[in-house]
């Protein structure tokens, strides 16, 4: 498609560091190509700011192809912006019109404190994973042959779909309760669906949920916002599976 140039107004959350109070600042940015990604537009803004000897906007990003999960941003009131099943780095400016005003804010959650501008600390997710998001198998090269345990294709596919989570935190950001259950549910599901993960399923779900609660995430009220905003389309089924796993685990 032919690309064109648009002029936009940006309202961006600026915050010097974790301790400072932040506020929304307004910027005008002209000649943005609609073929640019949202982050390329921010690059352009930063180039402009640097040329004006102003501090550029800090934002998280890395792979810019929608898989590392590092980019975030709450754009016009939605996690990863208006397009569906897309991370911010793959959101393109063709989703916006000439003259649009675009709000850009960081993820908001007690468990994801703002570090600077649009950057938040998502290490809570790492700690949940450390609490049980693994199979306790050491490296040896002497495990059984990969094909010794057949896994029904259906289960393997469901496990993969759950494992496709990129840990970006959009679920937490878009949930009105700041709940992390889609993230945790996906991880619990991936292992619960595979024979290799079943062995320690009980301990895993109990530990991961305990850690999740300790981190200060809110509670799921099944609004379904997470599933809609998840750039990888992780299904609510995974939360249900976690609920089930946890229920069985806690009465065991």
């Amino acid at each position: 498609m032919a690309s064109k140039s648009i002029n936009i107004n940006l309202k961006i959350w600026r915050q010097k560091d974790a301790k400072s109070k932040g506020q929304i600042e307004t910027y005008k940015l002209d000649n943005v190509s609609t073929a640019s990604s949202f982050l390329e537009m921010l690059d352009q803004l930063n180039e402009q700011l640097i040329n004006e000897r102003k501090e550029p906007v800090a934002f998280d990003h890395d792979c810019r192809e929608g898989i590392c999960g590092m980019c975030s941003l709450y754009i016009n009131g939605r996690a990863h912006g208006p397009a569906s099943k897309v991370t911010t780095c793959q959101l393109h400016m063709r989703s916006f019109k000439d003259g649009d005003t675009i709000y850009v804010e960081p993820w908001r959650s007690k468990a994801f404190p703002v570090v600077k501008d649009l950057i938040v600390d998502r290490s809570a997710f790492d700690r949940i994973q450390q609490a049980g998001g693994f199979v306790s198998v050491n490296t040896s090269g002497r495990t059984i042959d990969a094909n010794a345990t057949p896994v029904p294709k259906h289960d393997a596919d469901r496990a993969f779909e759950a494992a496709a989570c990129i840990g970006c935190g959009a679920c937490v950001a878009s949930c009105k309760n700041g709940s992390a259950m889609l993230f945790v549910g996906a991880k619990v599901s991936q292992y619960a669906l595979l024979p290799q993960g079943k062995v320690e399923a009980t301990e895993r779900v109990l530990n991961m949920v305990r850690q999740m609660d300790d981190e200060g995430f809110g509670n799921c009220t099944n609004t379904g916002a997470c599933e809609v905003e998840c750039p990888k389309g992780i299904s609510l089924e995974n939360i249900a599976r976690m609920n089930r796993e946890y229920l069985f685990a806690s009465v065991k």
Partner: protein
Amino acid sequence: MAKSALLKSSLAKKYWMALTGLFLCLFLIGHLLGNLQLLSTGKDAALNFNKYALFMTTNPAVKLLSYLTYFSILFHAVDGIVLTVQNKKARPVGYVKNSASSNTIWASRNMAVLGTLILVFIVTHMTNFWAVMHFDKKMPLQTVTIESEVMPGMPPQTQEMYVTVEGSYIPVAAVEQGMISIQNRTEVYRTDNNLKIAHLYKDLYKITVEFFKDAKWGLIATILYVFSMLVLAFHLYHGFGSAFQSLGLNNPKYNLLIKNFGKAFAIIVPLLFAVIPVYIHFFLK
């Protein structure tokens, strides 16, 4: 570990919300079936309704269920408040611009408000009917007017009679005449030997009809009742399916069924509840 998991964890709160919520849905069905008798127009409509009311207040099994219901309502409400407070804390700084309607339905975001309104309704509703039924000393009793031919050819005489639980009739006039007395609201005693001879029905039917037909407040009561049922409908619209999800009962095979059943339930049950006062206020002669 496992024990505290079932009481204190975030997921446990979901389970309890779901279980109490689903139980209250069952209660709604039971309550509705009883109430629907108010639509009956037969000669014995009032009597049948009051018989049912008596059964509901005295049967031990029903009693047990009712205590469970009170508990569920309280637990559902308290748990809901705790959850809401916790969830508010999980996002101390909100968004300047938030477009929640693009990813959620309105009801799902407003369960706490809807629930609070329902709680207010329940308290009012119980004050109006349940408390009267249980504690009001002036609670009217079920009577029937019986026509009897005293003598052939003479115009028939009408007489107000109490209907007893035991199946007999006692003239209302007998109280005034001092032959019998009514003690403990429904017990009939012979005055001469102070023997309990029968039990009477409280006339809940009358209370209800008068409540909604009241010249001054009847219309307002009807409107508020209908509004409350609308609130309930929204609450159920999200709540019913949500409970299944919370309990982990999510299976692609049945999801659509649960979802559609939940939606139907959320519309039909409150609608039928709402029909009753509307009927009483506008159509009941």
